[in-house]
């Protein structure tokens, strides 16, 4: 007779079998049996956050930077509802999370019991799948299935809701069975014909562009290697979405910058004028496409994605290849080497005129800004931060807003999994807890949250977590006293009516840092910036860096709403557009 285990023990048995090292969580009534069991499992470390949303984002940061699923443990009711934002965020950005939530005992479900909520009902639209475990016999099977669903195909969050009586109930534990066929949810059955068609299109293209996204990152570090080999082989210009940054080196001459609403002039014009567009693991998001009807009007479009529902969702494509990015790229590379003799020089001659055109666009220097000797320009601050940290393996997280776009534009990533940002959902308050998770996964690496002062206050309490676990995260706050992106839109679209976008009563961030028991640094002018940044980098513990930047700076270039890629507004350096920027509304 094999040993009987309680539901709580089975939870840990499953986590151990899934090689989980860290759980991000917050205790409460309905998960106490699981928390009680924690002490018996030394291979699993629990990270106590200060708010369940923080647990979710920390797990996202952990997952995105390590490639392993993030595990969250919360209680019923408010514990579960607080984690909803993070689950939705993970769902939008395809981050694998397994959230375990406590639930009131089964006999109390439906009675409006204390801290009861319909967790599976609430989280149904923001998870890949969720389960309410009503029978102890189902528990281990469900938990293993949860990890499988979260990590296979297009990754995403899942939730397992475990009532308290199930955590106490006893049963035998069965180890997970080896991968059985997974109900047709895995899609990696592209054909060689499709690859041949892709290679033919590549061979014929005169004005091609490669457009990559987060799918390359999710496909694993090997996918980035394959991408680099593939792109160098074909000699095409490559642009990336926000989530895809780092898959291809940001300082490589073939990389033409991020595309989309705040993308570079050359990337967006290349998208508009190209005759072949190869989308690798991106989803034609509305921040990327601009006006759909005029999106890349002259191109043949290829879409490589693991999720069949991404194909033709927004943009009709001519060739769809459903599969894992790395597998598809490896097949393409093999075919090119065999059939086209590696393209050698022929392909590069085909596109040389196109490159000349791109170089012309590059000369616009669309990321340029007018620097100042008196005030710190936020772009300058990000550039300095990049220059002073690029010699070490640095992980960057961000909040959401202007600072996020500046970070994406001016910080150059040369490796995947180094850039953690909330793209799809645009969650202010993501960066600080995400940095906590990243530092947990990479204790010896430099982790910086490039933040805005408004965003970072949304999850500021997680500084306490950083201090408790000695996580030397650096919170680099570009403080302009405004919700900058809101202010920018109000300036451009709402006649400078800055309705509620100014923060009247900001805390003193240096004192705030000290109150949390970490270091606070303030930089007021460009002269002291480098010195202060170095002071931050040299400090062994967590730091909040209050970087006072020009409050009136706008994030350019920008594609105004409802406009196609070739109608961008450039920054104040560009005289022609300077005239228009004065008139806000006339722009769009």
């Amino acid at each position: 007779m094999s040993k009987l285990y309680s539901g709580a023990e089975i939870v840990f048995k499953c986590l151990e079998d899934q090689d989980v090292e860290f759980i991000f969580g917050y205790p409460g009534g309905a998960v106490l049996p699981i928390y009680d069991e924690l002490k018996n499992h030394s291979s699993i470390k629990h990270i106590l956050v200060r708010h369940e949303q923080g647990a979710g984002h920390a797990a996202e940061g952990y997952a995105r930077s390590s490639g392993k699923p993030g595990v969250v443990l919360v209680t019923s009711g408010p514990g579960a509802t607080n984690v909803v934002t993070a689950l939705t965020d993970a769902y939008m950005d395809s981050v694998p999370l397994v959230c375990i939530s406590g639930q009131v005992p089964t006999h109390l479900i439906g009675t409006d019991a204390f801290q009861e909520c319909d967790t599976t009902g609430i989280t149904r639209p923001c998870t890949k799948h969720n389960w309410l475990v009503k029978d102890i016999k189902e528990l281990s099977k469900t938990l293993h299935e949860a990890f499988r669903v979260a990590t296979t195909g297009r990754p995403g969050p899942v939730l397992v809701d475990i009532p308290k009586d199930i955590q106490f109930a006893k049963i035998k534990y069965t180890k997970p069975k080896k991968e059985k066929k997974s109900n047709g949810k895995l899609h990696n059955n592209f054909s060689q014909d499709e690859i041949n068609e892709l290679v033919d299109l590549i061979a014929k293209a005169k004005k091609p562009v490669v457009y990559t996204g987060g799918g390359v990152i999710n496909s694993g570090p090997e996918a980035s290697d394959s991408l680099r080999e593939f792109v160098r082989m074909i000699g095409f210009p490559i642009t990336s979405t926000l989530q895809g940054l780092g898959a291809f080196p940001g300082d490589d001459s073939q990389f033409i910058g991020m595309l989309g609403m705040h993308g570079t002039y050359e990337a967006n014009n290349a998208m508009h004028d190209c005759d072949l567009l190869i989308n690798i693991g991106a989803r034609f998001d509305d921040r990327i496409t601009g006006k759909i009807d005029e999106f890349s009007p002259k191109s043949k479009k290829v879409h490589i994605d693991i999720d069949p529902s991404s194909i033709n969702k927004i943009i009709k494509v001519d060739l769809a290849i459903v599969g894992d990015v790395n597998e598809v790229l490896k097949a393409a590379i093999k075919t090119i080497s065999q059939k086209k003799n590696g393209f050698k020089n022929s392909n590069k001659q085909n596109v040389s005129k196109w490159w000349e055109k791109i170089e012309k666009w590059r000369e616009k220097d669309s990321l340029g800004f007018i620097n100042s000797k008196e005030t710190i320009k936020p772009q300058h601050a990000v550039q300095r931060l990049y220059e002073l940290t690029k010699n070490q393996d640095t992980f960057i997280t961000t909040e959401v807003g202007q600072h996020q776009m500046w970070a994406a534009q001016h910080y150059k990533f040369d490796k995947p999994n180094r850039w953690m940002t909330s793209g799809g959902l645009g969650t202010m308050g993501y960066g600080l807890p995400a940095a906590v998770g990243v530092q947990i996964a990479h204790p010896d690496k430099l982790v910086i949250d490039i933040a805005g002062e408004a965003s970072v206050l949304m999850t500021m309490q997680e500084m306490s977590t950083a201090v408790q676990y000695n996580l030397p995260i650096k919170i680099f706050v570009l403080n302009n006293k405004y919700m900058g992106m809101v202010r920018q839109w109000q300036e451009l679209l709402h006649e400078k009516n800055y309705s509620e976008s100014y923060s009247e009563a900001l805390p003193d961030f240096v004192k705030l840092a000290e109150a949390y028991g970490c270091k606070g640094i303030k930089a007021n002018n460009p002269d002291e910036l480098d010195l202060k940044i170095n002071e931050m980098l040299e400090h062994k513990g967590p730091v909040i860096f209050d970087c006072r930047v020009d409050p009136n700076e706008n994030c350019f270039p920008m594609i105004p709403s409802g406009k196609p890629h070739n109608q961008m507004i450039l920054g104040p350096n560009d005289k022609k557009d300077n005239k228009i920027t004065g008139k806000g509304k006339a722009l769009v």
Partner: protein
Amino acid sequence: MSNPKSAYNIPTKKSKSGTHIIVVWVDNEAGVLARVVGLFSGRGYNIESLAVAEVDAMKNISRITIVTTGTPQVIDQIKLQLKKLVPVHKVADFKREDKNVIFKEMALLKVVGNRSKIDKCLKACKTFNPVILDKTKKSVVIQITALRREIDKMNKKLKSNGLVSTSRTGAIAMTRGSEIFK
């Protein structure tokens, strides 16, 4: 320039909508209908009618039949999104015009009135396989099976002849011939 202050793109082209019947085979488990219906409401798809029941008690499989309208792109999305749901086994899609598929709905009609009114109603229902399920001196409950628009028509037509209450199912579908959908 349709909406200068919008942060989002407003489409200017619209393609034609068509009516489709989507059949979904799912594991019959708690919340599965909520998942399917929630996908429709959450993504702004339309449900004209819905029919669902378990069809295989051994394998625990339910068959959901949904009548929906949408552009070809939307219909494709509906199918692909449904296929992503974990408890969904397979998804079939039929156009309403498809001659190789049988579509049927059932309706129960309660008619209250004198003999002649009731007889008129029964006569009108003649082509729709009428079955009298209940009969009293001044009322009758008639079961008919027909297409949606036919039932719509009867519903309208019989009002003046004493139709007081209608209960109807969503459409169900089956392919003609020996083929089955795999």
